[in-house]
């Protein structure tokens, strides 16, 4: 199968501001420009105004979503083929210190 626009997936990214998100996003934008991704949708609970402008300027679409709300999330993911989540689900920083065995989860966005 070729990687033409017709077969290019719509990709959503959750956690774009995080450690892994910052590694993934530049490459995802490259793929978007090359039309190997037909849409790059960034999901976040809340967007910083400047960050929002930057994402849109690079061609991304943005979608607010509450991660604990099924209807909100379902709507935000409608039309998406591939979902990349870079949200941490292990470890935690508690009061500015690493708590690696806490079994807690941070939500950065």
């Amino acid at each position, binding site marked *: 199968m070729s990687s033409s626009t017709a077969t290019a997936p719509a990709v959503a990214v959750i956690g774009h501001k995080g450690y*892994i998100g910052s590694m993934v996003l530049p*490459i995802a934008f490259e793929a978007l420009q090359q039309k190997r991704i037909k849409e790059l949708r960034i999901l976040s609970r809340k967007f910083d105004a400047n960050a929002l402008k930057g994402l849109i300027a690079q061609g991304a679409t943005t979608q607010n979503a509450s*991660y604990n709300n*099924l209807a909100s999330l379902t709507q935000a993911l409608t039309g*998406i083929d591939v979902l990349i989540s870079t949200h941490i689900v292990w470890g935690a920083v508690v009061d500015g210190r690493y708590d690696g065995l806490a079994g807690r989860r941070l*939500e950065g966005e």
Partner: protein
Amino acid sequence: MMGLQGDDWKENKDTLLEAAAKAGVKVYIPSEFGTNHEITNYAHNATFAPKGHHFHEAVAKLPKVVGIYTSLVMEQTFIKWLGFDNDKEVWEIVGKGDVPVSITAKKDVGRFTVEAAIMAFQTPEKVPEKCQIHTFTYTLQQYADILDKYSETGNKLKLQGKTLEEAKENWEQIKDTIPIGMVSPRH
């Protein structure tokens, strides 16, 4: 920044999977991006078990799931908090440094993730459910030899071996002093 504790993470992640399934998402890449602890002694650790649980829940609910696992992030491997004191040109390591150790560069994490995302959509049968990515695999002696070529002082790095127990004790002593972001994503 909002911290979720206890079972909150589970509720949150279950909602994500349910929404992805309802919305018709075809490929899901969960937030693994680290060691595959299902093959280590830490599979049931309170920190890592949630990731494994979430992965299996995703496989059950979505058409295609790709877990991407890395080794130590290259840019944050040779740091003093892990025993690599480059200012003093001394590496305190476990053993003799003759065992291969893999590291993964940040750029490779991004590149592989995006390529896997596209490929898993276009030809899902060609992408394994779990992918392990490494940029380099050398012994610590070999890494030291490589870095010695770029030494500004002309000195060679000195490797000092210690036992695993000593290393664990040292970690317990210093872990609370490590700045956020220096060892793990939030560390």
